[in-house]
């Protein structure tokens, strides 16, 4: 492989990592605070993609503006879903079967509502950023770059909120120790509702961004859900940085791994990685690095 080919692949992996991080972060914070494995995350992503598509089709809104608009809309939607369904779940500091079933059932409902409204045809958005940005022999896909910048900016804003606001500190406290957090005055119910709204907003945002890169139908989101699990396991549950780290590892391994094994085995890369990390580093690679850092 030439140096140019290597750099092109590295750029592809970085752009993919930004997208993966946007996909996984919403799921991570919901799991961290509520210990809910949000299988409906894929459904929210699908709705985000269609939300952007409809704005583009009917109002001719730029897909990037549509993606940004999806944040407040899906935040409110997520709060509504929490109020309607999630708040009735029995509280637990471990994932429960009832929460898993509820979110799975809700995903099926979203999917079938999608089929009723939009049918099963694949849809896509014809973005203005179709070509590449040439930097000498190196080529950068412009659509991927725009999506990457949007994803990384939103993740940075989220990181800022989690570190600098009362809400962010409440979220971090609940992730670290829910009992101690409540003793010092964190309102678990209110924080959970806001977190669920935030997680849903990021799912919708990720879906809206992906609509600029991929075609989609009501089944959209499933392959990304699996990757989100891998990223969570790799990066740990405590920070946006961990998610970004997990996303980067997965994207690098997937992109470069395909050079050495047949492309048909690409899913085996993520699943294989998941199994290896769970067996060798149960706290995730981020947890392992953190422990080593403390020991040092």
């Amino acid at each position, binding site marked *: 492989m030439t140096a140019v080919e290597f750099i092109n692949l590295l750029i592809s992996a970085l752009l993919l990592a930004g997208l993966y991080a946007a996909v996984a972060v919403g799921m991570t914070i919901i799991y961290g605070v509520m210990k809910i494995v949000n299988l409906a995350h894929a459904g929210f992503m699908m709705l985000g993609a269609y939300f952007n598509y409809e704005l583009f089709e009917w109002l001719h809104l730029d897909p990037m503006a549509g993606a940004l608009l999806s944040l407040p809309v899906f935040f409110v939607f997520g709060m509504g879903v929490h109020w309607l369904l999630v708040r009735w779940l029995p509280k637990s500091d471990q994932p429960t079967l009832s929460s898993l079933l509820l979110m799975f059932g809700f995903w099926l409902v979203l999917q*079938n509502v999608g*089929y009723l409204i939009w049918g099963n045809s694949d849809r*896509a958005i014809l973005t203005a950023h179709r070509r590449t940005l040439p930097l000498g022999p190196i080529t950068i896909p412009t659509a991927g770059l725009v999506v990457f910048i949007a994803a990384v900016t939103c993740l940075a804003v989220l990181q800022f909120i989690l570190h600098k606001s009362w809400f962010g500190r409440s979220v971090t406290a609940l992730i670290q120790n829910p009992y101690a957090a409540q003793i010092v005055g964190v309102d678990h119910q209110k924080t959970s509702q806001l977190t669920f709204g935030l997680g849903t907003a990021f799912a919708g945002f990720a879906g809206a961004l992906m609509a600029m890169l991929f075609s989609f139908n009501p089944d959209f989101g499933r392959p990304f859900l699996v990757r989100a699990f891998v990223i969570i396991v790799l990066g740990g549950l405590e920070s946006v940085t961990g998610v970004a780290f997990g996303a980067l590892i997965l994207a690098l391994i997937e992109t470069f791994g395909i050079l050495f094994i047949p*492309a048909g085995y690409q899913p085996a890369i993520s699943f294989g990685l998941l199994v290896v990390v769970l067996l060798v580093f149960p706290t995730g690679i981020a947890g392992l690095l953190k422990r080593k850092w403390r020991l040092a």
Partner: protein
Amino acid sequence: MNRSSHRFTVILLLVAAVAGLIAGCKKGGGGDGITIGVVLPITGREGKPGQYQREGIELAIKQINDKGGLTVNGKKLQLKEVFYDDGSDSAKSASLVERAISSDSATAVLGGYSTALGQAESVIPDRYQTPWITTGAAASTIFNHGYQYTFGTLSPTTLLGGITAEFLGAQVDQGKLKKGLKIAMAVENTDHGVDYAQGIEDWIKQHPGYFTIVFNEKFDLGSPDFSGLLQKIKSAKADIFLADAHLADYITMQRQYLQNGLHHQMISYGARGPEADAKKALGAGTDYIFAGIWWSKKLQYPQEQKFVNDYKQFTGREPDSWYAATAYDGMRALALAIEQANSTDKTAIRDALRKVELKDSLLPGGAMKFGPNGQVGNGFLIVQNKPGDKVDIVFPKDVATGDAIAPIPAK
């Protein structure tokens, strides 16, 4: 049980009930005449093509019944359809075929749109010795088990690969492409993809000197990123790129293909290419892509125009792609076989299906006959996208509506 748990249980049941209600619906009936079971997806992932196939079958049934029905033993018998929606679910699909045969006493069953659903249904007919015609599944795995009651109106995917290679070979013969060009193949990791690649490889082996395959790999369905695969294809330095993909993968891969600055003398995504959704997503990025398809309304046989007009009158719109045409012919072939068997005995109908020839078929060639394994062997039409939303049939020559553009001009 406390109040919160009780509420939660009620919510969970409501969610389950709504999911169930949305996921499935059934329409059926009983009575005199000849009962034909139809099992297709009209909801779920495959709902749209399933609906088109249902319309093709129902149009054929309506036309037959409007003429008084089928003549069996001197009596006119009306066709009665028992329809089940399998919701794009393989397990449900197989059990509904069983139900149509055992509970509704269907004389024959049509259906099985998409390879996965067709494969699931294909194990039932021999068990109940009831003729079954799949109008939407083509993979060889359905037809190479030696089933005796299985028939199909889609030509095999290996033939699609073979005709794709034959079309490219014709461009070499015409001097448009050079001899000895290198081909890179990337096919989906399904029976469809495997059969397609096999067809191309077989043709190349039988016609030495035309092409060499320098890259051949399978990829996973629904993959979010093809950059690694495309980099390998770029490194292979091939002249022609042939892929076999579902629509979603076709759109994603072609978008990344363009963004990575790739260019080949010819490019195809198997049976995908002229779809309006792809055009909408990629604009001029789909220009010059060629595809092999089972049917086109641009075919010039007299029966094509009649079918298009009848379908439009029946549904209010023109047929979208090939879905309705193969289903329409499947039902007409079954009707002809019942009349030729002059009986409603299932084995007699099966025997008649083996011999029946639909002489005014909509499929390429204008006539349709089931082969020894139950599958038809009509050819494919090669169509090519051209600038300005134009799509031409470019191969075979006798039905072509325009010339193939080869090689693709560099942009």
